[in-house]
């Protein structure tokens, strides 16, 4: 009984040993593949725009997976390969005057008390569009939500046309032509 158990245990260990070696080989192959894929991804990000390149890189990496199991392993046995370091910080896309203008007008058109046909860049809220000061407060709050920064009350009560709002946001966010 004990002999069989010990034999089983030793057998299982031997079996585990070869299994572990297989696993190790597979893991190393996968690491090499992922490293090469990262290098490929970084190369493509270097050259093309990031958004459009993402599906392309995926396609390329999967094709490499299907085609060349052996090629990354061949590379690792060959000369040393480079690992590219890359730092990518997250940030919003840079603002331009046109984008600010478009976003301001878009938010204003979504407001139900304004008719979109009458809306111009220079239309005054109180005189041309017939809005209230409470409406103007709501509009400024919508602009704050859209652009993500607070407009203090002292400045907010002076902004009466979309053009002034665009100018103010461009001043605050350092947007030049």
């Amino acid at each position, binding site marked *: 009984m004990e002999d069989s158990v010990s034999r089983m245990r030793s057998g299982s260990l031997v079996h585990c040993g070869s299994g572990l070696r297989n696993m190790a080989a597979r893991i190393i192959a996968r690491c090499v593949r992922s490293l090469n894929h990262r290098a490929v991804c970084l190369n493509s990000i270097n050259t093309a725009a990031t958004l459009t390149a993402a599906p392309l890189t995926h396609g390329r990496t999967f094709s490499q997976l299907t085609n060349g199991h052996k090629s990354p392993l061949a590379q690792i046995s060959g000369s040393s390969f480079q690992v590219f370091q890359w730092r990518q910080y997250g940030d919003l896309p840079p603002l331009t005057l046109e984008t600010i203008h478009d976003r301001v007008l878009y938010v204003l058109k979504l407001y139900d008390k304004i008719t979109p046909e009458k809306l111009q860049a220079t239309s005054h809220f109180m005189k041309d569009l017939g809005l209230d*000061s409470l409406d103007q*407060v709501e509009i*400024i709050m919508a602009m704050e939500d859209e652009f*993500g*920064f607070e407009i203090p*009350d002292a400045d*907010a*009560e002076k902004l009466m046309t979309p053009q002034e709002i665009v100018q103010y946001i461009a001043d605050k966010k*350092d947007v030049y032509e």
Partner: protein
Amino acid sequence: MAAAYLTHHQKVLRLYKKSLRHIESWCIFRDKYRFYACLLRARFDENKHEKDMMKATMMLKAGEEEFWANQHPQPYLFPDSPGGTSYERYECYKAPEWCLDHWHPSEKAMYPDYFAKREQWKKLRVQSWDREVQQLQIETPADGPKSEALPPARKEGDLPPLWWQFVTRPRERPM
């Protein structure tokens, strides 16, 4: 705003804005917030045609007390607003522009166009400085300036006073 005191109109608008922001902090779902915002707007609208200032001031005082009682303990603040997470975060990187004069010539040689233009700007500043000071001396009252707002340039071909400080102010997000 020129005077030191807020008008009744301004106080009402500020109460409206901060109560809307606190309702937004309480009602996190947008449709619920919209509903309560419309209710608040209706409450403000039914009393907005009040002509009696005494009654209006009493209503404003009651509104402020109601706001204080119902405010959110941790209202949503924008990152750049005071109390927000990135308020004055980049102040330490905003160096004044006179530091550029202290660069080593080898560093300045890396940007020759910029520093050439900078010399012209500095000459312009030296020329216009006396006129700026003169304009400010004429325009400020005897007690001292009433507010921080600077007057615009009055004459043709003149630059507004203290324009150098404004033009060479650091960026909002330094590189």
